[in-house]
């Protein structure tokens, strides 16, 4: 069946889909070897003080049901493969938020023999939230920035280098 994107019903369905996506973000959390600080702050965003559920954001157990992957940690050698696998299991469209200094640059663990360095060397990242660890407010702000970006109708930011790496990984 040929679908014409200019047809009214297609436009309506797209709008409804975007509305639903923006108002019920399901996130899956993956710790790639962080010290725990970011993880407890992510958990804290779910609890009454910060209550991220008011934005419709819910922590989901399975990557297969999730829209957003929240990654912490400097990606250890042992966790790298699992991070990639978790990412590949998520349905499109998927977005990645990298939380904490060490997930962005390796942070204090830079140069350790068992540490990859950063999350964006393994998977494409949409939002970076620096801090060691970032405050819950910063984490909420990061998620909202992602949502605002999508709301304005923008596509996901392109990551040519990371996308190429992923393609190579998958082919290999």
């Amino acid at each position: 069946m040929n679908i014409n994107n200019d047809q009214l019903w297609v436009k309506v369905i797209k709008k409804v889909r975007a509305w639903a996506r923006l108002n019920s973000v399901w996130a899956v959390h993956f710790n790639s070897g962080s010290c725990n600080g970011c993880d407890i702050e992510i958990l804290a965003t779910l609890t009454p003080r910060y209550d991220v559920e008011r934005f419709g954001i819910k922590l989901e157990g399975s990557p297969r049901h999730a829209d957003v992957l929240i990654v912490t940690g400097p990606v250890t050698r042992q966790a790298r493969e699992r991070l990639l696998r978790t990412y590949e299991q998520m349905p499109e469209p998927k977005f990645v938020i990298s939380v904490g200094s060490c997930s962005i640059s390796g942070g204090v663990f830079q140069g350790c023999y068992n540490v990859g360095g950063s999350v964006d060397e393994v998977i494409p990242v949409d939002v970076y939230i620096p801090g060691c660890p970032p405050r819950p407010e910063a984490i909420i702000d990061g998620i909202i920035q992602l949502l605002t970006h999508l709301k304005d109708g923008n596509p996901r930011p392109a990551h040519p280098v990371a996308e190429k790496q992923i393609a190579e990984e998958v082919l290999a």
Partner: protein
Amino acid sequence: MNTEQNLQTADLLLAPWKKETAQPETNRLDVSIAANQLRQAVSALHNARWGYLSAITGTDLGPAAGQMEALYHFCNGAAITTLKIQLPRTDSAVLPTIEDIIPPATFFERELHEMLGFKFKAAKSNERLFIPDDWPEDVFPLRQDFSIEQAKPVEGRQAVEVPEAGRVGDSTFVVPIGPQHPALKEPGHFEFTVDGEIVTAARMRLGYAHRGIEKAAESRNWIQNLYLFERVCGICSHTHALAYSLGVEKLAQVEVSPRAQAIRELVAGLERIHSHLLWLGVAAHEAGFDTLFMYSWRDRETVMNLLEQITGNRVNYSANVLGGVKCEIGPEQAKAIKEGLNYLEPRINHYLGVVTTDTMFLNRTRGIGTISCEEAEEFGLLGPTARASGMLRDVRVEAPYGAYKQFPVSGVTETNGDLEARCVVRLKELLVTCFAIRAIIDNLPTGPLTVRVPRKIPAGETISRVEAPRGELLYYIKSNGTEHPARVHIRTPSLCNWVSVLEKAVGRQLADVPMLIAGMDPCFSCNDRLITTVDAARGRKTWSWTQLREHGIEYYKR
């Protein structure tokens, strides 16, 4: 018995095997023995019930010396006896295993093997626990001549966690959990073999969070390391920095002012409150009691506010500097802390009521995972997990450090040893902690916040023990007189407490397992500061829970 008498007893017990003795510090006794006499010496201490095996430190003395050292640290109150064995840095570095005498030594021996290449005679397995799957054979990261080029990933050795066929028998099934799993906030991998609902075997694989901090410490200077060790674990970051600072100050022979020590204890107390409330929430969440999770985390924010007000950060607060603390407790902070405690104490009492009376919660905790006092001693448990079984193992009480002599805390124990007792112990400990914090605020000593610590720390070695929220934390620090430490070895409490989960899961319903894991308050990031590896080609390199069970049974037969 005081420390001196304890050391004399140890000296007498070890007399038949000792080659040489030394007393590096007043509370320590180093006894050099031959490798082939290790088992007899360990048995002598163990049979006389002289303390417990706290850690085994391995040190590479370098290619020039051509020697490696294995140090078996036994702690008894404040007294520490170390059995010292020197072996050549070659394939002939073989030690006899002591895991049949002291079961928790399995973990320590694994660590020695993976990090430094010690071989263990008659060990049931020489499998890796910490190093990554694709790590090459015969490359040992803590050797002094190790370079990252040696550790190129080996092709085809990536492990697969999920069993290819879940069904392993007519009625048994393997349930894989992790490394990414809703019940785990941190990465770890478990495989539970179930027959119907009952767990018949359990395996675990650590090391997803292994970063190689001990090696990294050797290339950073003394001050940089303070911030590195704080990030071993984000939950108990202050205790890691505290143990390190206390050790370095001992080596540098610097006397820290009583005021700084008191503020350190105060921050440690606040950290304990935040950690235990966090734990209570997670344990409640694993039991399906999310209301308690939300309430306890709401109240935890009170402590987080206080920590932020005092130190400037919610987590990883860097309250310590070498030679003191960086934060002052003025009248404003003192008032805020008191107000916070006024709010928290009634809440803690309320939670104490909830965990001991709520029928639904008690169904998940009472009589589950019971560990007797004898078992706790045999498994070498530490911290609240041990204290819930009636074994008072608390460094703050046994060997007071810092300001704990001036502002003592009383040790809290329970006798039941089940999950309920572990909840009660932790909550009662919070009340004791609140009491100590009030005492510190009311009687804060005067003095400078910091004293000067030299950039180069005099050569020597020391052992620093502090009580983390999860149990005894041990730092072995060795200096060679330069700006960098020669070796820092960290033994975290979670490593010792895994035994309690491994032993108790078998025979229970699968639904109890998340609670059992939560019951010991595991901290993967602490455990995994070493390395981890699984090897698909040579069979799965994990440590089996049944193995440990067998050790236990064998142990009681003798």
